[in-house]
């Protein structure tokens, strides 16, 4: 049996996990399901694409590193784009969500995020057209790892990058003052506020982190597959499924949930074909809500 699909599932799962961290943090700290989160992935990727081609034009050449299909322009652009995506999330919060937050109706915020997602995605389509774009059109040679599994250098790099990002995030949430404050607000916002936690600062940090990680996930998808205005929207259901499966508010849960969703999708493609791939996340979601609505690491309310 060819185990290649597991490797492909893990790559997809890693990037779903990265994106789901933002979903789970916004859900637990700001207390609403953000339907515009997929758009952060797409916008982050297009920011990266625009900056990278700008660098390429300014300094010439694509500057590829070793066996990778991309080089320092994409890496530097990705870092700047992560910042920009975080700022985009902050601006959206300032213009929209902050104004609705004090009305105390979470579901109106969900609706606003739905409208914002539609507008942001169509704006991308207006600016860049619906034609797919690529960071690189070169075809990479995959080399064997073990058990007949082959990975490209890009895939190895991205898996390592995800592992590092997740470890840093986990330690950050556990140890840093702002990470602790974020967990406090997610547990009990009123109590956190009276204990002197700056809730506004926590909210800003949540958007910055969620936006930056969404950008990383989007760039991963852009490198391994392609760049389209709908790329984030199409990933939204897997993101929600991963966040709920892992347990709302749990960073390791979101990543584990992402890996499970990614591998489940890849395995299902082996059995039923690629046509119904997008339905797998939906089935996982229904199963979790039926069996264990709190998720793997979640606590029952």
């Amino acid at each position: 049996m060819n185990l290649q699909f597991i490797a492909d599932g893990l790559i997809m799962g890693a990037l779903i996990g990265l994106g789901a961290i933002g979903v789970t943090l916004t859900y637990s700290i700001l207390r609403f399901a953000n339907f515009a989160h997929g758009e952060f992935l797409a916008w982050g990727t297009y920011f990266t694409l625009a900056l990278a081609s700008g660098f390429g034009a300014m300094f010439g050449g694509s500057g590829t590193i070793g066996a990778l299909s991309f080089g320092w322009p994409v890496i530097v652009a990705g870092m700047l784009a992560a910042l920009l995506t975080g700022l985009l999330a902050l601006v959206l919060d300032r213009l929209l969500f902050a104004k609705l937050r004090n009305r105390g109706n979470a579901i109106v915020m969900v609706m606003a995020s739905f409208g914002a997602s539609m507008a942001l995605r169509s704006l991308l389509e207006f600016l860049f057209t619906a034609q797919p774009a690529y960071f690189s059109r070169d075809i990479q040679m995959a080399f064997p790892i073990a058990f007949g599994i082959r990975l490209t250098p890009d895939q190895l790099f991205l898996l390592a990058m995800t592992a590092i990002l997740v470890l840093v995030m986990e330690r950050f949430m556990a140890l840093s003052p702002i990470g602790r404050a974020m967990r406090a607000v997610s547990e009990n916002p009123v109590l956190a506020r009276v204990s002197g936690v700056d809730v506004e600062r926590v909210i800003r940090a949540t958007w910055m982190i969620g936006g930056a990680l969404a950008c990383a996930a989007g760039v991963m998808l852009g490198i391994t597959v392609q760049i389209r205005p709908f790329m984030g929207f199409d990933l939204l259901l897997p993101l929600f499924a991963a966040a709920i499966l892992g347990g709302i508010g749990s960073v390791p849960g979101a990543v584990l949930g992402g890996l499970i969703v990614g591998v489940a999708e890849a395995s299902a493609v082996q059995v039923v074909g690629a046509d119904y791939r997008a339905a797998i996340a939906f089935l996982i979601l229904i199963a979790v809500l039926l069996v264990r609505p709190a998720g793997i690491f979640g606590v029952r309310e």
Partner: protein
Amino acid sequence: MLDLLAYAAFFLVTALSYGIICLGLNVQWGQTGLFNVGVAGFVAIGAYTSALLTTPDVAGRFGGFGLPIWVGWIAAMLVSGLAAAFIGAITLRLRADYLAITTFGIAIAIQLVALNAETLTGGPFGIGFIPRAFGGLEDRPVIFNLANLALVGIVTALLYYGLERLVRSPWGRVLRAIREDETAAASLGKNANLFRIQAFALGSAIMGLAGAVQAHFIGFIAPENYVSTMTFQVWAMLIIGGSGNNRGALLGAVLVWGLWSITGALLAAFVPGEYQARAAALQIVLIGAALAALLVLRPRGILGEEKMISRFLKD
């Protein structure tokens, strides 16, 4: 002149069919506060159910029972309502946003089935030759459109009347009580979850009916009719018209569909071919921004929620 009349009737039939979807959404959101992101999915269930039952037999596709149109309408309501009851039973006992996420998921799943289950849904090419109401008049467009307008007008009026009665009934008051203060409603012995499931199923059944009405007016359905843009348009209609108000739902439907059609016609007339896809994207940006702005600036919409009390308490 006659062309204009035919177009006006055509426009109103389409707008009213959206108005029916809005009436369904108003039961869910306006009365009960349930956020359904899968409106297009429930409309699609109705349209496909009715199409399968009423079309003539086709080789290589399931269905084609050639039943009368009214049977298709009723079946559309039943199947959409049952699907919603199932989803509602799973999610409505949990956090409110889970309904939004699950309905978003079901719309995607239905879209996949419509695209890929060719023996059931005809795949990307959809289903054609759906019997049209007053199909015998098809070669005289003015009379055909006017007859359909009369039919859809009657359906809309009946629904409007029925829903107005319903929201003023004890059942409707329980829905609003649950929406405003679930604990208080529960302490009066109301099973909040059960009422929510009922309201969600009723609203989705109405959406299914609208799907069938549209299918039997146009005579052709395809998966790309039921994408998230439709859900989004219907939401814009209800919010702009005024959620919690059945007249607002209908007014919003006619207004937004009118705006959509006018901007669409202007784009087609003045924007060169290669830029049309981009301009259409801009159309959605504008409506999305308008919806978000309205939620911030004037959440009650044009008409706003109507204050409703028991008809026995008037004056």
